[in-house]
């Protein structure tokens, strides 16, 4: 499996991009050349120089440092959101898939209700109710997405439970733990990982969008969507301000999407 992962160039390149991004974010203190929040009005909109490799923004803050510190809210919070969503979705999906009758029915109807609202509108509604702030944005994203995963995982549990090889295992009396750990989990995990990776791009864009709209991460904290939002105010005079945060979002979202596609190929057992 690992050999197959390493042989796939797309997976290799995108994982490296993501891992390097995460490392840079984790060691932002050591790597960033300047304090991301240190404004100096004299230096605003300066071009790239030794002191400010990517120049400065409208308050004279180092753009590169802000990008690097921006990894934390953008990527880390997205990852955290995704993990919580999957954990909640898996728990409820497994309960629903294994129980027949009323419990399953109730859970599925709740999922139907959650899924019947357009997700961005739902997030805006939840943020509107709970107030502006990144915590509420994350909470809203999880509330929107868990139903989708719960439904997915429920159908996987039912699908694999009716596979002939599991019927065989039950026939000869294989232990339940063997069936779950060797048959169910590997199959379900590899499907969920692909979906989750593809979904990461959506979460990153969602959090950035809400920060862009001023609902998520609040100034002066550096966040890519919020940086874009500040840059758009000077779009006509200094269009190059959009470049750095825009490209950063583009690269990381593409990396996650391509990784999802690559993983789909690698994790398919039929793929040689």
């Amino acid at each position: 499996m690992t050999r197959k992962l390493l042989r796939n160039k797309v997976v290799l390149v995108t994982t490296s991009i993501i891992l390097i991004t995460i490392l840079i974010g984790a060691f932002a203190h050591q790597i960033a050349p300047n304090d991301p929040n240190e404004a100096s009005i004299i230096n605003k909109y300066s071009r790239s120089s030794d002191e400010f490799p990517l120049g400065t923004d409208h308050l004279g803050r180092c753009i590169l440092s802000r990008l690097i510190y921006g990894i934390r809210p953008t990527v880390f919070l997205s990852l955290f959101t995704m993990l919580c969503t999957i954990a909640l979705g898996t728990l409820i999906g497994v309960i629903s898939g294994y129980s027949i009758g009323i419990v399953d029915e109730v859970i599925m109807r709740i999922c139907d209700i959650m899924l019947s609202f357009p997700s961005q509108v739902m997030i805006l509604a939840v943020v509107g109710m709970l107030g502006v702030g990144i915590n509420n944005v994350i909470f809203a994203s999880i509330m929107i997405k868990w139903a989708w995963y719960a439904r997915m995982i429920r159908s996987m549990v039912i699908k694999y439970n009716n596979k002939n090889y599991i019927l065989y295992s039950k026939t000869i009396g294989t232990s339940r733990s063997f069936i779950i750990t060797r048959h169910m989990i590997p199959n379900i995990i590899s499907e969920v990982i692909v979906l989750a990776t593809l979904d990461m791009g959506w979460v990153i864009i969602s959090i950035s969008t809400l920060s862009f709209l001023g609902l998520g991460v609040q100034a002066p904290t550096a966040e890519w969507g919020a940086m874009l939002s500040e840059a758009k105010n000077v779009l006509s005079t200094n269009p190059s301000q959009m470049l750095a945060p825009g490209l950063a979002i583009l690269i990381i979202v593409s990396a996650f999407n391509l990784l999802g596609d690559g993983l789909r190929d690698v994790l398919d057992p039929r793929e040689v």
Partner: protein
Amino acid sequence: MLLQVENVYKSYSKSCGIIKKEKLQVLKGVSFKLHRSECLGIIGESGSGKSTLGRLIIGVEKPDNGNIFINNTNINSSRGKSIKKDVSVVFQDYFSSVNPRFKIIDIISEPIRVYEKLSKKDTTLKIINLLERVGLSKKFLSRYPHELSGGQLQRVCIARAIATKPKFIVLDEAISSLDVSIQVQILDLLKELKNDIDISYIFITHDLTAVTYICDRVIFFHDGNIVEQVDNIEDLKNVKNDYSKNLLQAATQMNVREAIYENQRVS
């Protein structure tokens, strides 16, 4: 008595709309017996409930009514676990019968692991032995299911089925998805195994030709009921029930096909 099925009923609830549920009666009072070292054919058109009956016998589903005894133990009683060793199963869809993430060696070691505490080396030896029994060499050990042909994979399923030394195997359309020439090979393999080890088969099929080729007794199954039993395969032509007659008529070309079978076996 190896297997005794007593007046078994089974229905599924079919949901129409959100609240309304309709009952679909699939088995309507089925009773029969299976003796040692015999092959019992169950033949019926598709949708008649044969697979459902198979699932009840292997104990993955429970009957609504009626009892199933294996070696005089009710399989749905508290002692039902102990007879799981005596039953095994081979399905029609060989590809979904094996975990696609398992190598052949892992597939066959699953049943061995359940009933025997063997060392890794002994397990491998036993698996090689089983593979040879079903006509496969040990070069298949570390292959994945998608690297095998349908006939080879079905042989792996048979090897896995006999690994626990069961008293009988339920073969649910086990040869129906294979090419005719491969069907004969598998039938011959099953016959050979039956001679070598003391084992019975429940051979579920919709194909009368295969029944005449391998079975000792035949049950005609229609719409959840047993409509006729033939205790001696030689008497097959004297069936009285209309449904069985129709089935028989539909298979009049079977002699032609049987000739083909014989030819292919010789060649």
